[in-house]
């Protein structure tokens, strides 16, 4: 469940421990240059394939048509010409706001429930079947329930994100708590740790990497679901932007939005990965 801790940092530290610091820095720079080179090569390949496909299917906009549109969108991200014409930056902020509020609410539910399930066999036995039944349901199926409950499309989107964010965090937290080694539990018992001490000094620190992995997965899925949910909801957000651009028959804007969605998803994921690395420990 938990991702292996990359040893990139260790490699960097090892490099720093070499007697010739200058040599180490050069080594690092070379490694970075190689990374950039191959990443550029990958994107270049993508561009080439895209161009070739565009040549053979005239309905698809090619890079030459799309990239200037993307550039224009990114040059003025925050313009606002009324409800149907807003800059991409504004739309992204709307979506991020919904994703983060839904993710936050979902996490606030998932973490305590997951901990209770991981710590108590009866709670686990009672709730696990419920979780297993609800988990495979597409979050969009919950959208009408959200609409019925809140009478607002925007709130229904957040509701769908809450549901989305529940499962990975809940399951990972449960798994983390349940896998607490007996040794640590015995330490808490022998030294008569208070409940609070047990929670904050044993259970939470131990399960934090698991929990954060769940949060990371949740955020990733939430970012995917928001696009679809906003397509349904309309009004604002990156999903609405995609659907609106399609209705305006502007494929370059759709493709640009896809690239932006991907980049933001990457940034969100890397941010949490960084956080996980900071709190993980070596036993």
């Amino acid at each position, binding site marked *: 469940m938990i991702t292996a801790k990359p040893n990139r940092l260790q490699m960097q530290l090892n490099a720093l421990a070499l007697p010739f610091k200058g040599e180490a820095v050069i080594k690092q720079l070379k490694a970075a240059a190689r990374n950039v080179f191959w990443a550029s090569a990958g994107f270049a390949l993508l561009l080439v394939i895209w161009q070739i496909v565009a040549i053979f299917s005239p309905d698809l906009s090619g890079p030459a048509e799309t990239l200037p549109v993307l550039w224009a969108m990114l040059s003025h991200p925050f313009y606002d010409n009324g409800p149907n014409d807003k800059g991409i930056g504004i739309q992204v902020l709307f979506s991020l706001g919904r994703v983060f509020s839904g993710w936050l609410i979902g996490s606030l539910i998932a973490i305590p429930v997951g901990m209770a399930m991981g710590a108590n066999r009866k709670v686990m036995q009672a709730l696990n079947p419920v979780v297993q039944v609800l988990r495979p349901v597409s979050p969009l199926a919950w959208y009408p329930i959200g609409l019925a409950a809140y009478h607002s499309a925007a709130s229904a989107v957040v509701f769908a994100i809450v549901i989305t964010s529940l499962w990975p965090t809940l399951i990972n937290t449960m798994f983390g708590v349940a896998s607490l080694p007996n*040794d*640590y539990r015995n330490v808490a*018992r022998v030294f008569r740790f208070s409940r609070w*001490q047990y929670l904050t000094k044993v259970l939470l620190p131990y399960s934090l990497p698991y929990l954060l992995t769940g949060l990371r997965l949740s955020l990733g899925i939430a970012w995917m679901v928001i696009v679809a949910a906003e397509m349904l909801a309309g009004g604002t957000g990156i999903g609405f932007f995609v659907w609106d651009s399609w209705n305006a028959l502007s494929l370059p804007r759709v493709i640009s939005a896809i690239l932006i969605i991907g980049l933001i998803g990457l940034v969100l994921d890397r941010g949490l990965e960084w956080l996980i690395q900071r709190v993980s*420990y070596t036993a």
Partner: protein
Amino acid sequence: MINNLMPTSATYPNGYLSIRNVVKTFDTPAGQMIALRDINLDVKRGEFISFIGHSGCGKSTLLNIIAGLLPQTGGQVTLDGKPITGPGPDRGVVFQNYSLLPWLSVKDNVFEAVDAVYRIMPYPEKQARVDDFLGKVGLAEHRHKRPNQLSGGMKQRVAIARAFAIHPEVMLLDEPFGALDALTRNSLQEELVQMLAGDNQTETVIMVTHDIDEAIYLSDRIVVMTNGPEATIGEIIEVNIPRPRHKQTLLHTPQWTEIKERLLYLLTEAYFVGRDA
């Protein structure tokens, strides 16, 4: 020490720590497995007792029962006249695999134990206690390190400091030096003797070991366990060697040789387990 206030052995007809008819069974898929049976032992206040035996003889299980971490299936264990029903601050434990919390610094590992046991002690006093015990095991300058930055010997020193810092009456050691190299083991054994001599709270020690020399060097009595399953106490050997003991001179005394030969006989012939021993 206030000897005249200390209960004499007469106060405890069954001993200070009394193990009576203890049985331990485990439920396995193959059915009920009897790990320990008919365990009877009386430990006097201030005694150093070692349990020695082959792997699987249930010596760690017995220690865990005394620690209150495992309930016995039958019989009773009493400490100071009171039945043991769970872990308590009167018993400190040093675990075989150190069991330090890897996300806490050396200092915090000791501090959390002191903090948990002494709820009402003022904060500076707790801090001083922690520093004092880390100093005693020679780890004062390593207190801000995490356990994974320490060697095995240093980790076990932290665990020893943690166990002693709560001033338990009884110290339970579960193969405390088993994972260490011979040199480190030697120096830690001596540090343990010094801790016990210098500490006026902890007097009684129960240690599980599979090291014959360690058992003789440290113990007043050595309890030899028969092989499991259905392990029980095979023989109890008194170690009548006066303290303080010095390892180098000890090796040449007739008592040492006699006890060692007896233990070797018991462990390699009487309770021999065969190929995988």
